C-alpha cells in the first residue's frame, strides 16, 4: 500500500515539475481571447487547434528545416570525429592520452556565449560568415564533440579489451577490428549519445543568433526569439510555435527515455 502511495506522490511531483510543459500546450489550445482571462483557465474551456494556422503564418517549416540541417550537420561531424577518438581514448593509457582527455573535458566547459566573439571575428576574417549555417555547425560541433567523446568513451570502456586482441589475432587490422567487432558492440551507446547531441543541437541558440544574419537562414530558436521580442502579447501563437518546435524532441525523449537515462548515468560523472 505504501508503495502505491509513494507512486502517487512521485506522480504528483512529476506533474508539478512538468507543469510548464503542460501550460505550453494548454495555452496553445486556447483562443487569443481566453488567455487573457483572470483567473486563468487551467484547462482550455473551448479548445481550438491552431497548429496549422500558426505553422503556415510564421513559415515555421522553413526555420525548423534550418534547425534540422544545422543539427544534422553538427551530429554528423560530432559522430565522425568523436566516435574514433572516444574509442582511442578508452584504450589509451599514459601521459599523452591523459592530456588529450583533459583537453577534451576542459574545452567542453567553455561557455558558447564567451567563445562566440573570437569565433565571429575569425569566421568573418576567413569569409565563413557568408555560409552562416556552416559556421554554426562548425562552432557548435566543437562543443558537442567534447560531450560526445566523454559519454562514448564510457561506452567503449565497457567493451572488453581482449575482444580487440582476439580480432587482431583472427586476422583483422586495427581498422577492421574497430569496425567489425568494437563498433557493433558499442552501437547502442553511440546511438543514444548521438541522439542526445542531435537534440541539443536542435535547440542551439547562441551561435545561430550571432552568425546568421539572413532571416531565411535562421534556425527555429532564433526565429522564435525574434518573434518573442516583437509580438510579446501573442501568447497563443508563441506557445503554438514552441509546442510545434519541441514536439519532435519530446516524442524522441518519450520513446528513448530509458536508454537516455542509462546513457547519461553511465558516462556523466566520468
Amino acid at each position: 500500500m505504501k508503495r502505491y502511495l509513494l507512486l502517487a506522490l512521485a506522480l504528483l511531483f512529476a506533474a508539478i515539475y512538468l507543469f510548464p510543459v503542460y501550460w505550453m500546450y494548454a495555452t496553445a489550445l486556447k483562443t487569443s481571447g481566453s488567455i487573457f482571462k483572470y483567473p486563468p483557465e487551467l484547462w482550455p474551456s473551448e479548445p481550438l487547434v491552431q497548429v496549422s494556422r500558426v505553422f503556415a503564418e510564421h513559415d515555421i517549416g522553413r526555420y525548423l528545416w534550418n534547425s534540422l540541417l544545422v543539427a544534422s550537420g553538427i551530429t554528423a561531424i560530432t559522430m565522425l570525429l568523436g566516435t574514433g577518438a572516444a574509442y582511442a581514448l578508452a584504450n589509451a593509457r599514459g601521459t599523452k592520452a591523459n592530456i588529450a582527455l583533459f583537453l577534451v573535458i576542459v574545452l567542453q566547459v567553455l561557455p558558447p556565449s564567451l567563445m562566440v566573439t573570437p569565433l565571429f571575428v575569425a569566421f568573418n576574417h576567413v569569409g565563413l560568415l557568408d555560409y552562416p549555417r556552416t559556421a554554426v555547425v562548425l562552432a557548435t560541433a566543437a562543443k558537442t564533440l567534447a560531450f560526445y567523446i566523454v559519454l562514448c568513451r564510457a561506452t567503449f570502456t565497457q567493451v572488453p579489451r581482449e575482444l580487440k586482441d582476439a580480432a587482431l589475432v583472427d586476422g583483422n587490422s586495427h581498422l577492421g577490428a574497430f569496425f567489425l567487432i568494437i563498433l557493433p558492440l558499442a552501437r547502442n551507446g553511440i546511438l543514444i549519445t548521438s541522439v542526445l547531441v542531435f537534440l541539443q543541437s536542435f535547440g542551439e541558440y547562441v551561435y545561430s543568433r550571432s552568425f546568421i544574419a539572413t532571416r531565411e537562414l535562421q534556425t527555429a530558436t532564433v526565429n522564435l526569439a525574434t518573434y518573442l521580442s516583437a509580438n510579446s502579447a501573442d501568447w497563443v501563437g508563441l506557445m503554438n510555435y514552441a509546442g510545434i518546435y519541441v514536439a519532435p524532441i519530446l516524442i524522441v525523449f518519450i520513446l528513448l527515455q530509458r536508454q537516455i537515462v542509462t546513457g547519461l548515468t553511465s558516462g556523466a560523472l566520468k
Partner: protein
Amino acid sequence: MNVDHPSMNQIEIEHLNKNYGSLQVLHDISLDIPIGAFVALVGPSGCGKSTLLRTIAGLETITSGTIKVAGEVVNDKAPRERDLAMVFQSYALYPHMTVEQNMSYSLRLRRRPKAEIDQRVGEAAKILGLEKLLKRRPKQLSGGQRQRVAMGRAIVRNPKVFLFDEPLSNLDAALRVQMRSEIRKLHKNLGATSVYVTHDQIEAMTMADLIVVLHDGRIEQIGKPLDLYRRPANRFVAGFIGSPAMNFVPAEITADGRAIALGAGALLKIPRAQEPGRKVLAGLRPEHLRLDGSGERLAATVDIVEGTGSMTFIEAKVGSELVNIAYAGTYETEAGAPLTLGIASEDIYLFDPETGRAL
C-alpha cells in the same frame, strides 16, 4: 632433436626487452621453441608471462630484440600476418556472433570458400563436441562450453602456432583437470607448436614438453618438467616447482666439505663436495623427507599434522626452522611428538644464500 638448427625452431626470441614507459617488464629474454613442442610459460602472477605471449602474438610492440617465427623476423608484422591463433583467459568470444560465426570469423576474414569454412568448422565442432551449440550465442553457454568455443576458434584456422593465456583459470577444479588432458590430446593430434601460459606449476608440469620459468620479467630456467624438478637452477625455481614447496634451511658446509651442519646439530652428507665452512641454504623437498629415518638423519618435533587419508602433511620443527613433510599414506602422530627424519643424500639441494644459485 637438434635445437641449434634454425629450421627446427618454430619461434626464436633473442634478447627481447619490453618497457611500459619507464617500467621494464621483460628483461633480455632469449628463448627457442622447437617445432611441434608444447611449451609452458610459468611464473607467479605479474611476472610478465602474458606480456611475453602477447609480444609473440604481435599484440604488444617490443622495445628491443627480435622475434622470429619460422625463421622469419616478425618484429614489425601485425598479428594477422603471423599466422598464430590465441586462446584468451576470458575467452574473448564475440558476443554478437553465434558459436559458428565465432569459429568461422578468421576464415571469413581470409575469404575462404564457403564449403571449406563449413567443413572446417564442422570438424572442429566435432572434435570439441560443439555440434549442438553452433547456433547459440556465447551468453547462452556455460563456462566450460565457452572455453571449448575459444579452443574451436583457434583450431579451425589450422595455424602454425597456438598461444594460450591461462585458458583454464576460469574453470572449476574438476573441469580444469579434464580440459588439461583434452588439450594435451588435441596437441598430440594436431601437432602444432603451442605456447601455454599458466601460473599453476602443476598445469605446466603435467602438460608441457618444455617449461620456461619466469620471475620478475626474467627467465629463471628452461627445461623439461622433470629436469626442473630434479635440477633446479636456483632457489626460485626450486621453490616454485613442486608442491608442497621445497623447505629451505640455513646450513654450513663442514670442514671436510662433504656434509652440511644444520642449526639443530644434524650432519647430513651431501652428494658433491663443497667449499668447507661456506654458508648455504639446504633445500629439502617435503616428499623426500622420510619418517622412517633412513638415509641422512635429522631430529625434529611435530608441530601440526594434517591428514587427507592418502596423504599426511606434517609441519615439524628442526631446531628453530619449520619444515614441511609430505608422507604418502596415513601416519598417526600428534603435536610435540619427536620424529627422526631421513633423506637420501642425493635429494639434498644446496643454494647460495645470497645469489640463490644452485651449488
